[in-house]
């Protein structure tokens, strides 16, 4: 049963694994450039396992000691996970003891796969979600550790490799767009985010953008329910 679920999960994870190896490596290289051994990116990718927050944490570690600030920053940068959790309530709470790891390991990409993928016929759902989560995290840990080990020794210019993260979200966005017959939520998300970005600037827009999205979607609820099934 486990082997079948693992083999079913693997192809869904390959694109993310590729992205994670690259971005994880750039994270490891980044920590190495700040003077940390490979043990640091390895341990943070096991314990924190939230990519963008790990980059931010590396930066925090070379600044003034401020644990409360670190906590607040983690809550803000990762507040989007609250949205993911709400989307996964029904899927994950049926998973028994495995749910603890499913929830712990629910990064952006794993969430994107598990929320949008139905396991094939005859494959155990919970083990499928479990292996998607595990394979993704293993790739991230491997990339971060490798990056920390090789440091600045890479034989080619890696400038711009961080775009792989952007490309990943664009591809996920396109995939969701093509699969959906109503695009109101996606359009709302982009418009609210751009509005918050213009109003609050690149360093402070994440929280206002999330509030704006929440308000807009709440206001649109009647419209959404009335036109259930209709093209939008």
């Amino acid at each position: 049963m486990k082997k079948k679920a693992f083999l079913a999960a693997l192809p869904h994870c390959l694109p993310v694994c590729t992205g994670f190896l690259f971005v994880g490596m750039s994270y490891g290289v980044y920590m190495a450039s700040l003077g940390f051994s490979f043990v640091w990116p390895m341990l943070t990718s096991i314990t924190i396992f939230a990519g963008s927050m790990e980059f931010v944490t590396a930066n925090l570690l070379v600044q003034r000691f401020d644990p409360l600030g670190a906590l607040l920053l983690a809550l803000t940068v990762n507040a989007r996970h609250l949205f993911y959790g709400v989307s996964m309530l029904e899927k994950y709470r049926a998973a028994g003891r495995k749910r603890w790891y499913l929830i712990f390991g629910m990064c952006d990409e794993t969430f994107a796969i598990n929320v949008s993928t139905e396991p094939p016929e005859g494959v155990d759902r919970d083990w499928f979600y479990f292996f998607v989560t595990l394979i993704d995290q293993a790739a991230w840990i491997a990339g971060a550790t490798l990056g920390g080990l090789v440091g600045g020794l890479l034989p080619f210019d890696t400038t711009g490799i961080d775009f792989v993260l952007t490309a990943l979200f664009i591809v996920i966005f396109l995939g969701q767009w093509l699969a959906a017959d109503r695009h109101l939520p996606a359009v709302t998300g982009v418009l609210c985010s751009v509005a918050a970005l213009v109003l609050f600037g690149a360093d402070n827009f994440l929280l206002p953008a999330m509030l704006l999205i929440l308000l807009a979607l709440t206001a649109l609820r009647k419209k959404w329910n009335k036109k259930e099934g209709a093209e939008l």
Partner: protein
Amino acid sequence: MTMTFPQAALTIAMVVLGTVITRFLPFILFPASRPIPAYIKYLGEVLPHAVTGLLVVYCLRNISPFRAPFGLPELISFAVILVLHLYKRNTLLSLLGGTACYMLLVQLVFTA
């Protein structure tokens, strides 16, 4: 490294705590015994698409349409991903094509 080891460990522990709270809170607020309110169900349905939109904007937050290179490397790479994805529907191909395009652009064309 400017922090002592305990300080660095505590900083990481706080980041872990913050991250774990954001991931577990919905499941604690709505345990299996309590029915999920219709409003929360609605959010669960529409939020994933909206949040992906937010993440795309978040990744592109530092480009400026008023300053060279005017976000052109990102815009061109975005177009490459769009064309590749509509044409082939292969996630890995779109991902690598877009990233390679961006790397070539910032290393060879839009060199600052």
